[in-house]
């Protein structure tokens, strides 16, 4: 059987070779008139078959094909705090494959511009409630035994334009404040054995060396659990946008806590309450009180194919098509993803595919035969912490719509009969309003 297939393949190859030869010959000597059914891309010799390609020393650091120039980060004035130095460039997650984000496309959030720190002048200082304060150069830090981990980093404001209503019809601006890389560095619990953390130390201030002197408070439990000091992403040095030469990695936690351009760790007995954990990155609820220090990014998912950017307009009625997307949770490992075709009334189980890692993007897949009728597609992830992605109304009924951060409600796509895909919400405004008013009233009575 196998032999026969092999023979067949060889026969086929020989056959194609003959055709190619005759076409080239015909093309070169006596052009045959192409019939309407023929695809010139096959009949004519492709452009690069007739000339030299680029010399190998053209790009000593490679760049993507120029044809992929539309795959890039994008910005929006409304998502800035006034200008492009305190703003975010969104990752084109609709164009990503697998679970790793190329370094040049990793989302870029800065609070005072991107610092280009001189690695020769880089110093990390560790002090406060420790037995032995320490200064390390970059080379000294990189001597510690290293580990590599694949984790997403997500800004807690990801998806925040969707609290009240859908507003963007592109995945890049709905969920592009996140990316994933393989990070390499040293686990803090390993490094700190030599520093000796005092038992009175309960909190750590991590501070960046950028314009904003970004400071964030981390509890000692996280520092000793899986926090790392990382100097590499996807096999090369961190990009300046990601905090070159060293950033803090707190797997699964708010992007802002993964302090970039890290220069200082201070151990203390109390939390600090920095600007980014009071004025910002706190979640105001309908009671008028705000949740502070909301650390992990909750269980979440989104269908990437199809999406407004990747519609089904080229599909014919009855075509088979893969529905796939990304699921992630800062609380643990994705256990499964459900899919709905009717806007969340009924659900079926999709399959996970590829690597399934803790606190990491996980791909899911469902092969579907589309009958050309409109559907409302959605995905819902759940994790091994026992947490399930909420509907919009479930989330809003608890948090209201003014919290800005940590929106992880189910995303739904309307697929029209033409195969166009639109961002729609499926929600019960009346129920939301009733819950919100009840909370507001309860707070007044209290």
């Amino acid at each position, binding site marked *: 059987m196998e032999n026969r297939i092999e023979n067949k393949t060889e026969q086929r190859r020989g056959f194609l070779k003959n055709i190619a030869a005759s076409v080239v010959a015909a093309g070169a000597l006596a052009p045959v008139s192409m019939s309407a059914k023929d695809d010139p891309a096959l009949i004519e010799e492709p452009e690069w078959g007739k000339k030299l390609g680029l010399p190998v020393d053209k790009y000593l650091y490679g760049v993507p094909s120029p044809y992929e120039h539309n795959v890039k980060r994008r910005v929006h004035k409304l998502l800035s705090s006034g*200008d492009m130095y305190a703003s975010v460039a969104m990752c084109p997650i609709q164009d990503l494959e697998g679970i790793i984000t190329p370094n040049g496309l990793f989302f870029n959030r800065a609070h005072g511009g991107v610092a280009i720190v001189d690695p020769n002048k880089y110093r990390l200082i560790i002090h406060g409630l420790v037995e032995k304060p320490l200064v390390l150069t970059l080379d000294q830090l990189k001597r510690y035994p290293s580990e590599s981990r694949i984790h997403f980093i997500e800004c807690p404001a990801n998806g925040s334009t969707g609290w009240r209503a859908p507003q963007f019809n592109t995945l890049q601006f709905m969920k592009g404040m996140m990316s994933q890389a393989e990070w390499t560095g040293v686990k803090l619990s390993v490094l700190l054995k030599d520093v000796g953390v005092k038992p009175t130390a309960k909190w750590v201030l991590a501070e960046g060396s950028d314009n904003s002197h970004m400071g964030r408070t981390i509890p000692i439990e996280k520092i000793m659990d899986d926090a790392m000091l990382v100097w590499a992403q996807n096999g090369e040095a961190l990009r300046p946008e990601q905090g070159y030469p060293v950033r803090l990695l707190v797997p699964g936690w708010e992007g802002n806590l993964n302090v970039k351009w890290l220069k200082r760790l201070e151990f203390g007995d109390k939390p600090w309450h920095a600007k980014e954990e009071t004025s910002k990155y706190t979640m105001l609820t309908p009671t008028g009180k705000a949740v502070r220090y909301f650390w*992990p990014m909750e269980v979440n998912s989104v269908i990437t194919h199809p999406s407004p950017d990747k519609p089904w307009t080229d599909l014919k009625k009855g075509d088979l098509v893969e529905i796939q997307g990304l699921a992630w949770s800062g609380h643990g490992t994705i256990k499964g993803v459900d899919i709905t075709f009717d806007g969340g009334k009924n659900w079926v189980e999709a399959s996970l595919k590829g690597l399934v890692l803790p606190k990491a993007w996980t791909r899911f897949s469902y092969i579907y035969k589309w009958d050309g009728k409109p559907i409302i597609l959605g995905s819902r992830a759940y994790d091994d912490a026992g947490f399930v992605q909420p509907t919009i109304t479930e989330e809003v009924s608890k948090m209201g719509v003014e919290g800005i951060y940590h929106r992880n409600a189910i995303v739904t796509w309307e697929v029209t009969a033409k195969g166009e895909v639109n961002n729609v919400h499926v929600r019960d405004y009346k129920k939301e309003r009733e819950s919100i008013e009840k909370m507001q009233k309860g707070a007044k009575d209290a």
Partner: protein
Amino acid sequence: MLKLNRKTVSVFASIALALTAPAFAAEKEIKVKGPSFKERSIDGAVDYKVKNGTYAGVYKVNPQRDKIKGFSYGRTPTANEIKASDIDVRYDWQGLPDGKGTAAKGDELFNKHCSMCHGDFGAGGKGYPPLSGGEKSSLKNQLLDPESGDEPPHKVIGSYWPYASTLWWYVKTGMPFPHPMSLTNDEVYSIVAYLLSVNEVQIDGEDIDDDMVIDKKKLMKVVMPNVDGFYPDVNGKDGALNMKKFLSNPQNYGTQTVRCMKNCEPGEVVHIKNSLDEGIIPPVSEKRDLPKEKKSSGGDNKYAKMFEASCNSCHGNSAIAPVPGDKEAWAPRIKQGKETLYEHALKGFKGMPPKGGTNLPDADIKGIVDYMIEKSK
């Protein structure tokens, strides 16, 4: 061979059929199991461990890692090095340096260094965050329907910030935006006094008037109106444990523990009414074509780069300062003559700080001004 083919095809067809009509799970609801409270880490997450040399069941770990210590890299910092690095001010005022100032002096400094971005009295309106003008009572507002005309909550210093220490720390180390760490401690005291006064924050029940001297002792008495506006409490003896309690129960923040599989009632379909897609830069495109040739804008010269680094934070935004290339804005300025423009750039002029707040040599400032003029002719 033919037979086999047919069989494959028919098997495939029946799969395809199943795909169009999803087989609904039998249960209406499935509860998802998670670890007990004890088995969770401080954020309510699964507490993964190293077992048999493998972390979380997926990453191999060198077993020496957790046994060995005694790497002797680096050195002990000097007392001076620690002092210079330790620039934070904690909520209990640990780290607040000595100094003093008044709101009157702060008013002057604010107009010189801050109001071009934050507006007069910090009231906003220039695209940058407003720093005043909010009521604490607004925090309960919820703007579910933007067309209702309801007010959203106003989260500014006086209405929202729980601690004044944060303001001192942030103004000192993060502002003014184009050149932080340039204000003296006394200047920061004055600006903080001013910002607290325009936010109507009191000290010991007293308004902060223009000439009240605010020093370390006085500032440490400030209790912000919204100090109790945040939960869970993390300052008490339970510390982060309260966060663990909060985060371990997803009901606290709307996340669920049950998968509804059948006849769920999520609500109505809502389409986009107010699209923000217009403002995306560059516009979204899935085309795979060759990029259009860009015309060189002469932006490669040395002074263009210096402008980008030192002046663009203000001169890139027409709400703050004249933007090079905006011929209308520049024509009357250019009319004043080059020497006047140099002078204004070097010595300062209204909202324009001397040298734009930099310490670049005069020649470079002049070079940048030439570049700005050239671009705006």
